[in-house]
């Protein structure tokens, strides 16, 4: 598998200190660490939402730290997908319009095709009958799955997820994680920031961040439903060792 994202000596103020790691195509990696350790900042910087102070971020062969804001925006639109904890959506649009919004922007005049794709994704993730609902008429889990649909519309190479289950109850969270696994199995790379060891345990690897540095890494390998319990126990022990 080729390297999709390579990070070298990435620094941002006092939050990130010379961080280096890489992500290979098709991997699903979790970033964990206590509050204030720099997890979210890492995510913003490797996805080009924020401008790093130093270091190098190479995405799919392109060095992105030096790109202009517009170039980074293009990259996010066409090659990256995002899922946020707050489930940011535009309140005055219904669910399906929110899902197609960025894709419509990238591919004008293909409204029907995009709507079809959105409906297929929604069906796939069990929210097919909510397409016309307003965003305040669906549950948190449903909304987050809609956000995941949105992130997939452009068939991105990577999905960045920032605490995607942070605002959800246990069962909704489980649905969302299941959705990520499904995506990943189809080949999309996932980098997920999470607080929840159980969520992290489904990932191929876990990076542990503390005071702006990567302090440890746990390799779990590809997830199968059979070894779920065992992975969870390994993860929790490792986290305990890291001082979680």
């Amino acid at each position, binding site marked *: 598998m080729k390297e999709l994202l390579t990070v070298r000596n990435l620094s941002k103020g006092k939050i990130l200190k010379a961080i280096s790691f890489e992500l290979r195509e098709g991997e699903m990696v979790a970033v964990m660490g206590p509050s204030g350790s720099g997890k979210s900042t890492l995510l913003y910087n490797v996805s080009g*939402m924020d401008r790093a102070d130093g270091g190098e971020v190479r995405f799919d062969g392109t060095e992105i730290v030096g790109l202009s*804001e*517009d170039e980074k925006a293009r990259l996010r639109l*066409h090659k*990256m997908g995002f899922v946020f904890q707050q489930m*940011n959506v535009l309140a005055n649009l219904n669910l399906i319009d929110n899902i197609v919004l*960025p894709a419509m*922007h990238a591919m004008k005049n293909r409204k029907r095709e995009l709507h079809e794709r959105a409906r297929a994704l929604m069906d796939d993730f069990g929210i097919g009958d909510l397409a016309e609902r307003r965003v305040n008429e669906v549950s948190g889990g449903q909304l987050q799955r809609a956000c995941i649909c949105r992130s997939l519309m452009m068939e991105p190479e990577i999905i960045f997820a*920032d605490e995607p289950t942070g605002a959800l109850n246990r069962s909704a969270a489980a649905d969302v994680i299941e959705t990520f696994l499904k995506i990943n199995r189809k080949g999309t790379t996932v980098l997920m920031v999470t607080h929840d060891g159980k969520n992290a345990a489904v990932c191929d690897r876990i990076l542990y961040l503390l005071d702006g540095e990567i302090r440890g890494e746990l390799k779990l390998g590809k997830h199968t439903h059979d070894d779920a319990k065992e992975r969870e126990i390994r993860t929790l022990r490792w986290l305990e060792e890291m001082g979680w």
Partner: protein
Amino acid sequence: MVNRRLLINDFKANRLVTASTSIFMAASALLLGLSILLFGTLTSAIDSLMAKALTPDFIQMHTGTIDEERIARFSEKRSDVEALQISRFLNLQNSQVSVGGTSLVDSTQDNGLSVQSPLFDFLIDLDNEAVHPAPGEVYVPVAYIREYGLKVGDLMRIGSETLTIAGFIRDSQMNAMMASSKRFLVSEADYERFKPLGSEEYLIEFRLAEGSDVNAFATAYEDAGLPGNGPTITRTLIMMMNALSDGMMILVILLVSVVVLFISMLSIRYMILTRLEKDKREIGLLKAVGIARREIRGLYFSKYLLLSAVGGLVGIGAAMLIAKPLGAQIRDLYGDGGNMGPIYALMILGALVVEGIILLSVYRTLGRMERMSAVQALYGRGDFGKRKNLYLPIGIITAAAVFMILVPWNIGSTLASPEFVTYMGVGGNSRIRIDIRQTDRIGATAHAVVEELERDERVLDHAVMQTGSYRSELPDGSSYNLLIEQGDHERFPVRYIEGGYPRHAGEIALSVLNASELDLRIGDPIRVFIDVGTDRPVSVPFTVSGIYSDVTNGGKTAKISPTGLDDRTPIMWSIIYVALADERLIDEWIEEYRRIDDAIKAVDIADYIDGLYGQTIRTIRKTAILTVIAASAILFVVLLLLLRLVIWRERSDNSLKKALGFTTREIKKTYLKKTLAYLLPGMAVGILLGLLPGQSLVGAFIGLMGAHGFRFIIDPIGVFATIPLVIAAAAMAATLIGLEEVGRIHAYECLGPQSGDY
């Protein structure tokens, strides 16, 4: 203490909104204060001049013989007459007069000499004294100081004689350039000396007891068959003419102040609503911890109270500063009004009312916060009413700004247009007007000029009008003296409000004032007595064919086409309208015709308008330009503010869009499109408002001076190109600067806690 800290922190955190709010409050107070101050200065100056000069209530101008005893007997019999005075006015030929080295040949005024009145209608010097010149001295109308750059000690020449300018006078009757005569004050001896050089007119003047009905008196005067060979003028008309030139500017400022008050209220309201939306959680918190709703409202209100106090004071101060230069012309012409105390009090009251109106609207808007429960507010759920469309005020304010600019602009272009004279009772389409007066041989002179005109190949068209004073009779037997102009009224028509010009013998057109005074409508009958050289004049039946707008000769005139009778009624004056094939020749042509006879007064209509309205036009133009600047500035500020509010409000959406891959330019483009979608219709609505209701508004005011059926004469380049371009430029500048804010929104903001100030 806590409140004060809250206030100060709030001001610091929201500099733009705080500054804009106080600017709006100051501007509203400034403009209303300014209009009150100027209006007060003008009316009190005119009042005090008229009081000092003892302006007559009724004046009958008369040329020809006069039986003073008959007038005196009439006057004694009437209980409403307080005083009678017959003043003389020695009308000079402008070509014979020069002041300070400048000939008056181009003057459109009737310039003449007078002596100081004995009883009333005094001519007042700049020290407010009725002055008595010594032989060899002359006092010159104050309006000429600027017009001809005069100073005391300059010389005035009449024919080959000279007089020394000993000072300047204010003439309560004829001060305004719009009054078409000017009196130069000389000694009795000089008056007699110059008598052979001019023709004498009489001003038969009455002071009436307070509360008398001037119209009833005028009718009684006419019914008594007393001398009436000339226009009648009333005190009201004099006041109107005096008030008009600067009054127009004040009217415009007043109008602008109303528009600005409206814009201010609208803008402040939107700022508050946006603010409340932003503070939703804080308000919820205050409610949750048990602070009474009224107290929370009071907390917010105290901020606006403070801003309005500051704004009001700044506005009043600025109004007093600006009123000085703007009122300079008023003080030059009419002197100081004396006690300004009540006017200042009125101005302060006006500012208080303006601030009160704004604060009331603020208080009502703040009431919105009471609609939401603490829990709703805390969780940012509820809304303060429907979420406001912030683009709508952009459209409305653009319309208001354009309207505000268009009114003075259109007044200016209308007054300056050659067509405007048709409202004044002067024939349209002509470029030259020749007046033949003050000669025993008006008919013969006119005849000579006409012969010359017919030979002249440069002349495209001409028409001769001869005015005489005729007795007329209504079916009920009442009789009136009418100044009737006879001639071909088709070729250089005036503005008819109803009906049309008298086409055939037996048709008569009346000026608006005459029609309303005689209570005649189109198709009504009236008889006119025409002197055909026998003992008894012939009574000829006429039907009213049209009613037209006129301000000349006190606004009371009539028109007929030639009767075909041997009309021997004396001609009082003759006017010839001329159109030239090549208008570039006007100056040269006029020069040539003036040489035919001294009694000929030939003027370029453009100069004629300039003489009457030049002053007004210049003030209006100045006001129009100031309005353009003010309106553009207001639009700029408001647009900048509203856009920043919109962007601030949609900040998290914008941040999300950026996170999802929209570029700054793309987001800006959507804003630009939306702004234009409201801006352009706003401009169109503004233009429509400026043209239609604006016209009726100004028309109503101009109607007061006798020019009826007013229509704007539009300068199309200004209205449809210059003004929209200026407004669009201001709006675009504000939009582009406002949209810079989009660039400062970061993609990651939507992920963390909401931030950003507006």
